[in-house]
């Protein structure tokens, strides 16, 4: 497949050089809002004429400042983001929104700023949405949405009206349609999991207009069956897959990743925003209940996607990626594993960190052995 004519080049460029769009937009004096975490309503920033850009860690690099201030039990993801903040890598942002699963990052950054040791940190906003479907927290969540609108308005001088929000919701619906088409094509072996992850993830680092054009072009060139017959794997992950290292290792081992229970992949699109609600309420609803994070409650809601997809005939096996950073999903793992196996899907548990060279090597070896074992089971009389 020739990247130059498929739109994948643009998507890859944005995925690999994640600051490029925001730095270029800064030169055009555009307001840039960085956000950490999936539970952030991008439409809100776009409607206020700001450019929302996801902030992700650069994994594998040294973090000497974080190592001084943050204990080893805290995830590499938070440590790296802290390092970025302290050394000034977020200085081009007009606002950095940190979502609830990253509250620790907010506290670390706030304290280091208070100490005068991170003077180039942009204004911080803690977007503390509780992703549970309970009346008890509904009023609180509405208040946090209003706070977010206020925080964005402070840096954009604009408070979007319903029409402007509706315009952005419509645009995101078009993009979601393309992403859903992309996912459909994955079931049909039209592309690798690595390319799919890039195509989904690039949207977090691009202006939506550019993303829509590049994704549309890419999807238009895909054809079912383009990837040779390989076992199709669904990935369940305990940490956000903002990198493609895991998929690369799994596919080098001979598998094809056709879906992942993660906002950086198959669940990037989510469901359409409810049409019976006012735009702000629709955004709140979607951000609360559809953003794929570990904080969704109850568990039935959090696991609904897994349960409905693991049983698909297009899934041959399930890969549980639970690296050492995990403190939560491991409690659900035995139950989810049993569910998958009850559905006739073999499972593999991976506990290595895909972001390290050593971890990737281990993953390749274990995934290869798993692939062979599954094949032997299939062919044995």
């Amino acid at each position, binding site marked *: 497949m020739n990247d130059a004519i498929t739109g994948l080049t643009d998507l890859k460029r944005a995925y690999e050089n994640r600051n490029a769009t925001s730095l270029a937009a800064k030169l055009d004096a555009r307001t840039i809002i960085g956000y950490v975490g999936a539970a952030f309503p991008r439409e809100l920033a776009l409607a206020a004429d700001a450019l929302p850009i996801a902030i992700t860690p650069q994994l594998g690099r040294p973090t000497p400042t974080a190592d*001084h*201030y*943050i*204990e*080893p*039990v*805290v995830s590499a993801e938070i440590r790296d983001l802290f390092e970025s903040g302290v050394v000034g890598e977020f200085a081009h942002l007009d606002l950095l929104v940190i979502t*609830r699963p990253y*509250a*620790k990052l*907010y*506290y*670390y950054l*706030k*304290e*280091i700023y*208070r100490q005068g040791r991170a003077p180039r940190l942009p204004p911080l906003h*803690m977007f*503390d949405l*509780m992703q*549970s479907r*309970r*009346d*008890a*927290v509904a*009023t*609180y969540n509405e*208040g946090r949405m209003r706070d977010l609108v206020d925080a964005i308005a402070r840096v954009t001088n604009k408070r979007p009206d319903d029409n402007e929000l509706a315009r952005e919701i419509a645009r995101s619906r078009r993009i979601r349609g393309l992403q859903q088409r992309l996912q459909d094509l994955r079931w049909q072996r039209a592309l690798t999991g690595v390319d799919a992850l890039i195509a989904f993830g690039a949207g977090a680092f691009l202006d939506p207009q550019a993303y829509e054009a590049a994704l549309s072009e890419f999807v238009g060139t895909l054809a079912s069956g383009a990837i040779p017959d390989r076992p199709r794997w669904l990935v369940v992950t305990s940490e956000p897959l903002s990198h493609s290292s895991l998929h690369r290792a799994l596919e080098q081992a001979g598998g094809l990743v056709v879906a992942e229970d993660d906002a950086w992949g198959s669940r990037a699109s989510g469901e359409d925003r409810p049409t019976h609600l006012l735009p702000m309420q629709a955004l709140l609803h979607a951000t609360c209940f559809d953003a794929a994070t570990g*904080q969704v*409650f109850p*568990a039935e809601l959090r696991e609904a996607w897994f349960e409905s997809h693991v049983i698909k005939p297009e899934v041959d096996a399930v890969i549980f990626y*639970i690296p*050492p950073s*995990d*403190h*939560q*999903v*491991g*409690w*659900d*793992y*035995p*139950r989810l*594993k049993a569910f998958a196996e009850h559905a006739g899907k073999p499972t593999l548990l991976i*506990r290595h960190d895909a972001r390290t060279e050593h971890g990737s090597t281990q993953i390749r070896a274990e995934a290869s052995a798993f692939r062979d074992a599954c094949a032997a089971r299939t062919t044995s009389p």
Partner: protein
Amino acid sequence: MTKTVDAESSRARREDSTQLEVSRAARAYQREWFATLRREVFEEGRPYAISGPTVPHEIWEALDLPFITDVWYSGLVAAKQQGAYYSSYLARQGFHEGLSRYGALTLAVIMDEQNPDKPWGGLPKPALVCSNSEDRSAQLLARMSGAAYVPLETPSLRVLHPNWWSMSRWQWEDLDEPFRIDVMVEQLKELVAVSERIAGRKLDYERLAEIVDRVNRQEEYFDEIRTIIARAPKLPVRVGEVMSQVMRIQWHRGTEWALDAARAFRDEVQQRADAGQWVCPNEQYRLMYVGQGLWSNLDFFTEFEQRYGAVFVRSNYLSIASDGYLRYGNDPLRALASRYVTMSEQMHIPGLGSAWALHEAREHRIDGGLSNAGWWGGRMTTVALEEAGIPVLEFPLDPVGEKGLDDRRMREMVAEFIETRLAPLRQGA
């Protein structure tokens, strides 16, 4: 049965090292309480609740609904030297070793239906589980028990007040912000509704107010104990015993027994201080412990007295009892909501935990600190203490299990710390 032998020798050691009569009385009360719980719950089928530590048990006390706190029960499991057994039991069930065992040993005891040698006779399945919403092991416990589950989602802090302990008793609306307290009140109402259904009675808010008031008075006694320990010329009572005693009383907070026990505890510590009964007459170094309790080896805190004249004078457990629990006001549910809106987090959150530790270090005339490296936010506390001239030793510890360093290596590290970090400062002075 090795576990039984270990538990017996541990019990004998504990009896030998016990300094306070109230400790013996509290242990006896705890045994009796467990026996009653087992009879009522096992034999009579009375429903009971299990919760995390940051849950307002006062509501259940007011409803006469028995309850167990998972981390405190895990502490009992560890004190019975069964932490390693149940930790590996969980691993055999597929729960990887990186998952916190702090509260989950309770889950393990309930899951493990084969082992007849369970701490305090084991636990039956609960009718209600309440925990922080991120505690997946508690959700699992509810699921496998068929119990009702009520999550408590604590709102993040927006404004950080470094001197939070000076605001928490009377100025908590400002400290915790009304909108954050509001969402906790709504969740507590949800907990009340589910608890009422299980208890089969309506919550009497006047009784709840009496209980909250009783808890405040109990925590005031703890506050006095902290002051006695901080101001006495030398340490009058060992920190391990203080931690155990505090947690036993906290478990039963709101009862007349707990209030009486706290008063007796205060009186006995005061008497020892007045009589000059010091833990280590040759006291040279005063140490503080930051982090979760070393429940499987409380004797560790006494091991440096003879050789170095080093005593541990302070842990989080006594100090948070007064600084974290006390809330005065007329609305008991709102006061409880304020207490739990940040309960425990104020010990971790960078800026809050470090300011508190530094304040406590100064109040207790601390020479050096030991910090559990597995405690999130601990490094900022270490940095703050070190920058203030108080050396800190960090080491990896599992508060209830066998992960982390072995005893011998831990002792070596502390000895080296005293010799190379604290002694030169003393000589310099």
